[in-house]
Structures are given as C-alpha cells and as structure tokens.
C-alpha cells in the first residue's frame, strides 16, 4: 500500500466508526451534505477519532476543512502533517 492509499483506508475506518449507518462503499463520497448525522458534534467526534488513529493533534482552526472525506484526505496527506504524525 502506498502512503496515500493507507491514509485513505485508515480515514475510511474513522468515518465508519463515527457514521456506522453509512454503507462502507459510500464512505469515500461522504460529506456534510450527504450524511444527515454529520453535524458539528459529529465533526468533533470525527476529529478526535482521526487524532487518535493518526496519532496527531489537529488545530481547532483547521476544523473548517473537515467537511468531506475528500477534503479530510487532502488535509491528512499534506507533507507537514504526515511528518508530524
């Protein structure tokens, strides 16, 4: 697995545990607009799960980027964050 594939897979696991009602195959297309349960509290839970999984700290100011699987994957794939993790 390449690093980016591995990040995507781990991120999918994170979404799966926070949104257990969303079918697995739809998780990579999940976003605030497509998942009814994805509210602000769910975002905070998701961020904590991601912090736990990737062993990193996400600054509060960055939470506004956590709007979809794709955006989060992009965020997590940034070299600076990967180096910190």
């Amino acid at each position, binding site marked *: 697995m390449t690093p980016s594939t591995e990040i995507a897979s781990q991120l999918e696991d994170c979404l799966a545990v926070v949104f*257990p009602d969303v079918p697995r195959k739809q998780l990579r297309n999940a976003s605030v607009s497509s998942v009814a349960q994805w509210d602000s509290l769910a975002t*905070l839970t998701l961020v904590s799960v991601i912090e736990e999984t990737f062993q990193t700290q996400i600054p509060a100011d960055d939470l506004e980027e956590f709007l979809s699987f794709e955006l989060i994957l992009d965020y997590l794939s940034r070299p600076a964050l990967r180096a910190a993790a």
Partner: protein
Amino acid sequence: MESSSRAFLSQTRVCPREPTVTLVEALRTVNSRAKETARHGFSLACGFTPLHFKTFFAAQLVERTSAGRIDVEVGLFGDLPGTLRRLIENPPDGVAVPMEWSDLDSRLGFRSTHGWRIDRGADILSSVQMRLSELSLVLTELSQRTTVALSLPTLPLPPMFKPPRGMSDPTVLELRRQLAEFAAGLAQTSQVRVVDTQQLDLASPISTRYDAASDLRTGFPYRQEHACLLSEALANLLRPAAPMKGIITDLDNTLWSGIIGEDGVDEISWDLDHKTQAHGLYQEMLASLSELGVFIGVASKNDPLVAQQGLQRTDLVVSRDSLFPVKANWGAKSESVQRILKTWNIGAESVLFLDDSPIELAEVAAGVPGIQCRQFPTGDAEAILRLIGEMRDLFGKTTVTVEDQLRVSSLKSSGAVATSAAIDPEEFLRQAEAEITLEWNMPDERCFELINKTNQFNLNGQRFDEATWRRRLSDPQSFLLAARYSDKYAPLGKVSVLAGRWRNGIPQIDIWVLSCRAFSRRIEHQVLQSCFERFDCEQIHFDFLPTDRNAPLRELLTDLCGTEPNGPVTLTRSQFNSHCPSLYAKVLSHDSLNRNRVAA
C-alpha cells in the same frame, strides 16, 4: 473495548494512568449493539456538552448489559435542574449525573466572566446553597422512580478567590462543606448513589482532568481519559456487577505471617510488633466481608491439629466462627477447595481463592475450573493493601440483609439437618418445628437479590436489572410471593421468591427461585399449595426453561406433572394434590394490603 476491557477496568481502580479505552474502541463497542431491537434507555444529566463522555458512558453500559441497544439521552446545556425535573415525568432505566461546579453557579466555571470580584463570595455561597437544596429535592424524587448515580464536582475551581493558590479560602472551604452536606444527605435519605471521590481521585488525578481548550471551544470540559474513568465510575453505580459469594484462604503466609508447622503457634503473627500488620488488615477485611454474608473458608496444607491451634489463638482479628469450613490436610488443595464449594453449594465462578504459593494457585486453577485465583503478596504491604481494596470491590454490597447475617449460621445448621435427615427424612421434617412466613406483594432488596443470584432452583434463569424490576412491580396484573423459613435449628430468612402475572384467568409464573440452603424442607410444596389456595384456581402455568443448572426445579416439576418438562408447563390442582408429600410447617401469611392474616 471488547474482551480485554474488563481487565482494564479493574486495573484502573488501583493503577492510575494506565492506557485507557480509546474513543475508537468505545464507538465500536456502542456500534456493536446499534442494530439490536431491544433497548435500554439511559440519561446523562449534565450541564456541559457531553460529547465523548456520552460515547464512553454508553460503551460502559454495553459492557454491563448482556444484550440490547444502549440509548443515552442528554439534557439541555447549562440546565441541570430542568433536565432532572423532566426525567421525573418519564424516567429512563438509569440516570447519570456528572455534576460540576458550574452547575451550582456558572461563575464557578471557566466559561463565564464577571464573577471573580472580591465581594461576590457571599452571593456565590448563597446561590450554591439554594441550587443544592433544589437539586437535593429533585434527585430524591427521581431516585424513587429510577436508579440515579451522582458524581460531585471533579474539576478544579477557577483561581477566583483572594489568597494565592495553596492557601484555602474560607469561601472555598464553605463551598466544600455545603457540597459534603448535600452528598451525605442524599446518600443517607434517598436512593441516589454517590461516586466515591477518593477512588476517582486515585484513578484520575485532578491535575489531568480539565481540557481548557475543549471547554472554551465546545463546552466539553474533560480530557478523554477522565471522561472514560468518570463514565466508568457512574456506570458502575447504575449497573453494578453482582458481588462474589465466597473466599477460600490459605493459612501460612496468608491469613498469618509465618509457617505454623515449622515456626510454632506462638511465632505466627499479624501485628505491628512483628512488622506483619498487613496480615492483620487482611483478616480485618475477611471479618468485615463475613458480616456482609460472604462465605470465608480455609484450605491449608497442614496438620489439621496444628492448623486448629493457630485458629484458636484468641487474638485472631477474624472470628474463628466466621471461617467455615476449614480444610487442613496434606492432600491436593483443589480437592479441599472442591469440598468447600460442595459445603457452600455455590459455583466456583463466585469464589476467590487466595494463596501465597504460585504452585498451589496453578493447581487449584487447573483443578477447579472457573474459580478466580489471586496470589497473596506476602512481604509486600502495599500490594496486600491493593488486594484488600480489590476484595472490597469484588464482594462489597450496597445493603446488608438479615439473610446475609444468617448465612454462615444457617449453613452450619444445614449440617445438622443433613445428619438428621439421613436417619429419617420424614421424621426429621415432622419434628423440625418449621415455620414458613409468606409475604404477598411485599418486595424488598432481598427479593431482587435472590432472583438475581439463584441458579439451581430457578424457573428459567431470568435476571433483572433494577429498572425492569421496578417496572414489573408497578404492573397491577403482577403478583409477588416471598417465603421466609425458620425451624428449631436456625432461621434461614427469606429463601424463596415466586412472581407472575394473571393472563386469561390463569396465574402465569415466570419467576421462581429457592435458595439452595433451603432445599429438602418441602418449602417449594408449601409455596405451591399456598398459591392454589390464594389464587383459588385449578391450574398454574410455569414459564419453565431448562438451563445448565436448574435441574432441582426440573425434577420438582417432573415429580408433580409426571413428565419431564422441556419448556413452559401447566400444573393442575389435582396433579399437585396427588403428588404433594406431607407438609408439616406452620404457615403464616402477610400481604401488603391485609397484614397478619393466618392462612393455614
């Protein structure tokens, strides 16, 4: 959280800062039950944003329930009294109340300003006093309808008072006094269960609890580890584990320090002078647990006469009468343990075996499947004190019944019964001067305990949580019969509980248990006879279900019905009359509406 979580949960009680359950694990635990149709509804009444606390709390409850989805509802931010009042109208299965200072006065939290003026102290004290009075009333009322677990403020107060930190301010001391008075009042006069602050402090140091960034940003004030530990403490009070029933202890280097066979009876010790006080404290714990009705037995590799010399020392902390039976011999310890279990007539899984020797522990673990074994850490006072604390966790009870205090004496009297019965059972029953007191619709703690701990004479193995039990008792179609027994040998206390509902004009029994200490007295026949008389019916239906351990009840129904039941069964009055043996006990009947009515 899964299989290893229980081990972790017990470790946290004695080893603070161990790795905690992660949020991912907690979410997985909760999700594992999400599709189940049966549900348990709980409420988290708090004034802060519960966020991960709700997840950890739900996961802890999943761990404590055998099946069913756990739904946790939360109240309104900043309105603890309002949340509790609303719950009184529609009480859930249990309510956890993690109270914080800001619930008593918002100026005592970090999310408000303009409260730290010097002249505000008296006003804060006054408003806290009023809030505590309000909470006391509403919590008392709520606790009459459902199980309530309360934790007192766990977070530090802001540095809002005059002195430098490190010096107590009179206002803070007065706040703590008010809080202590509030908690003591609730614990003494209501059914609210209050989290032990000292135990929580040991597991979750106060300096590591508050998450300022999270509190100021989202209103969730706890660091994850504290959220996990506090939710565990509250869940423990809402769904406590059933206490274990018996302890089997070694003697040498366990009950006392030294080897009596080599050192001599005068050289064994358990006191400060010999630097062996930890053994005295272990005896103290055994004595205390014995008062709660815990069986304490002895399994020792020793000459029986020599062991008796040690046990006859008058300065033993634990009463010699509390130790029963004592098995001192040179055989395998597992055989002694098996004999003790047979005397107690309880399963190995309810028993803790303590010995200083790893070899003996291994031999007993292999020879007595299911028993819990712990090494007694002779020579390590701190480890002994940790073990003693763990014993309190495993055996502690919230209430002590009359039956708890009778247990050991009635067990000893069973020996006399068995001996007499072996000669002529019928004659024994005739001369036993037995008296059975039937209590109709008079539920108490003992009924609940008996139903949830009896395995052998148990109609179907059904267990109840407190919420389900309360709902059942409030059903006007339900009935409950408890039986107390005494004879000239000893009182046994309340030994049988039978319960059911009326359906289509027929009493349907779905709960029936009889303590194993009360077997062979024909109490079960007397109970059935009283049911036929009281219900004035021709048949009674039993929701029997065979379990791995309820052969005694199956055999009774087989005797009475003529065929072995594999499921629900109906017993007719004529079947009962044809097969019921002679009954000799004097029966008194009481009920909640018509007291002291003599039925037979």
